[in-house]
């Protein structure tokens, strides 16, 4: 249950780990746009090299990043296949019934596949090298201008932080309740659909009851310590841009220019 790689933080001491969460967040977003500048093989090679270099700098090894692709493998394959069949220009390679595969279709689906993979791998750098709470802090900080138009940014961020904080707790709890019910003879994932669905009742009820109980206790504890909403609270975790953030932005800028340049090769 807890072997989900996607969105799981792996501690480390690399430069990438030490970057401000906001830097990683902004660069991840920018990457999604910038990658569309690539329009030939050199562009994609250049982008692949950049992503590979970034991954090397995390010091986590490529394996965990490829594992991160697995949950999305299905989505990637479907998108790639759709490209393969929907593109009808270029030389026809295979023609069968209503399906036509052309050279352009093949090239395009390869491009879509590579682009998809690069985007996922690059954004995975953020989630693998940044504690979830820091990601939430970064989002709060980046959204703070919205406060001016009355968006309760701090409260939203607090909700996200609390939710993130309890994900591992709930996963562990689900695991132990599941074990307890299996010991009482529940066979999860066996039998027909209805039986399967029914077998989850003994898991979900205690899980929800405990989650609600915990939420009430947390609320009481916060109130007992005088929590009030408001804008001027100080922070325990302070985000701070440092020199390496400047270096990261500069490197990304150079990458973007380089990628733009590959269009003219």
């Amino acid at each position: 249950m807890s072997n989900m790689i996607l969105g799981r933080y792996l501690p480390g001491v690399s430069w990438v780990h030490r970057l401000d969460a906001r830097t990683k967040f902004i660069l991840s977003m920018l990457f999604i746009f910038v990658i569309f500048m690539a329009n030939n093989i050199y562009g994609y090679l250049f982008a692949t090299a950049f992503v590979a270099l970034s991954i090397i700098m995390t010091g986590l090894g490529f394996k965990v990043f490829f594992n991160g692709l697995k949950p999305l493998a299905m989505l990637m394959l479907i998108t790639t296949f759709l490209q393969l069949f929907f593109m009808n220009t270029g030389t026809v390679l295979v023609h069968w019934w209503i399906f036509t595969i052309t050279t352009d279709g093949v090239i395009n689906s390869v491009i879509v596949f590579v682009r998809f993979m690069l985007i996922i791998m690059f954004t995975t750098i953020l989630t693998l090298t940044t504690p979830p709470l820091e990601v939430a802090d970064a989002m709060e900080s980046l959204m703070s201008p919205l406060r001016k138009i009355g968006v309760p940014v701090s409260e939203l961020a607090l909700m996200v932080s609390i939710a993130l904080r309890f994900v591992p707790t709930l996963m562990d709890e689900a695991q132990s309740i599941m074990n307890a019910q299996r010991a009482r003879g529940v066979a999860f994932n066996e039998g027909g659909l209805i039986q399967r669905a029914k077998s989850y009742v003994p898991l979900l009820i205690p899980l929800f009851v405990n989650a609600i109980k915990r939420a009430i206790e947390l609320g009481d504890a916060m109130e007992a310590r005088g929590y009030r909403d408001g804008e001027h609270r100080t922070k325990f975790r302070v985000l701070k841009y440092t020199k390496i953030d400047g270096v990261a932005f500069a490197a990304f800028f150079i990458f973007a220019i380089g990628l733009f340049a590959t269009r003219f090769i």
Partner: protein
Amino acid sequence: MAITFKNVGFTYQAGTPFATPALYDVNFNIPDHSFTAVIGHTGSGKSTMVQLLDGLELPTDGEITIGSATITAATKRKTLNGMRHDIGMVFQFPEAQLFEQTVLADVMFGPMNYGMSKAEAEIAAKAALALVQMPESSYEASPFDLSGGQMRRVAIAGVIAMEPEILILDEPTAGLDPAGQADLMALFANLQKERDLTVILITHQMEFVGQYADNVLVFDAGSVVKTGTPAEIFADSDWLRQKQLDVPAATQFSDYLEAKGLPLHGALDLDQLADEIVGLIGGPTHE
């Protein structure tokens, strides 16, 4: 059903970056119908061991034999569901497993999953609830309206009602008041004698080990480092302290008197110690 662990190793989430080795080369033997206590520092692998025993996880290495069944890394998970039939397991904080609308229905849940008819399950459930001293008036109450201690007892009844041959108890008394703890332990000891069960008890309370167990496994850092009778285990209190464990208070006191020159030899509980001291003085024996 005798239980044997042979060179058993286990790693949580093996093959992922989060792999956590929890057991290394565990070897032991639990005789049929014995009362075995499992002691060891927190994180030494006790809970992991009993989960392997109940087929909730498969060993990464080695072989587990329970009666005629054998579990290895290659065992099919589906066959394990059937195997659990004879094993009752009370988890740490078992009150988390309650989910039914009434106390009675929750206690009947396990027995019915293992093939008892509704009528049979109801008889077994009522007997189990009586054993744990839940008043009849509570049978139709929601388990979520009970006190923490009562929820614990209902959860335990839910396992006893399955009428297992092996009863595994993972720190069943943690967080209860002293009277409640002693009651529960006495209940388990009686049940073991009456139904001729094999009981495996994980506990940090050496008093109960001295009083009820006839076999002790000492866990340290994922391995069994010593096995023996309580008398053998508690004979070396310095060694136990090194493993962050302790001896029963009676044994400690007896050791202390012995060091002062009294001819005592490591009583395991208060009754035994009283008898020995009375024997020394030469008065009538205790009880």
